[in-house]
């Protein structure tokens, strides 16, 4: 596929459990972003990866959230000890490079529901 893919598309979990969300960016895109969209809210920036540089984690809401990007490609967002307020759609986007305000290409998102 040519686009950004995310898995799973839906995840229902119980409060206190850990979850992992996966993002496969467009091949060759060096920049990768994670966002969260809670009900009735805009897209909230979480974390940004660019090549081999240290990620910008300034948007992560708590230390229960972490993300990795292996080999400059696939990224995993991990939420530990999930809380009900973590329920949201988690969106991943990639872009070719930074510094030139490139268009971001978004995946379809993962809808997370914490019971």
């Amino acid at each position, binding site marked *: 596929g040519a686009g*950004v893919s995310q898995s799973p598309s839906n995840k229902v979990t119980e409060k206190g459990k850990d979850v992992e969300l996966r993002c496969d960016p467009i091949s060759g895109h060096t*920049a990768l*972003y994670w*966002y969260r969209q809670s009900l*009735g*809210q*805009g*897209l*909230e*920036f979480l974390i*940004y990866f*660019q090549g081999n540089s240290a990620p*910008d984690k*300034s*948007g992560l809401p708590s230390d229960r959230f972490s993300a990795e990007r292996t080999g400059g490609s696939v990224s995993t967002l991990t939420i530990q000890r999930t809380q009900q307020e973590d329920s949201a759609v988690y*969106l991943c*986007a990639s872009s070719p490079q*930074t*510094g*030139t*305000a490139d*268009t*971001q*290409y*978004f*995946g*379809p*998102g993962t809808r997370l529901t914490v019971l």
Partner: protein
Amino acid sequence: DQQVKQNSPSLSVQEGRISILNCDYTNSMFDYFLWYKKYPAEGPTFLISISSIKDKNEDGRFTVFLNKSAKHLSLHIVPSQPGDSAVYFCAAYSTSGTYKYIFGTGTRLKVLA
């Protein structure tokens, strides 16, 4: 602090008429602005952008206007079509900043046939 604001959560327009979606920003460091369109259960898709060196950018039925002094941009869709019904997000970016896109809360547009 909401740096990018879309004050109208929803808008209804008759087919064939003009749709105007508004966006305000507070940070004068933003110098690049984008509009995204989002259908249910899909990720946002890029629609149109504008650099701060311009005050207008047009692409088919879509035109974005930028008023830097007012820190305001708007998206015009003419003529509106039922397929344009979606949520529209504006986003702002600083090319000299930390490469973070700041998104508004979105406006849900409904085009009535």
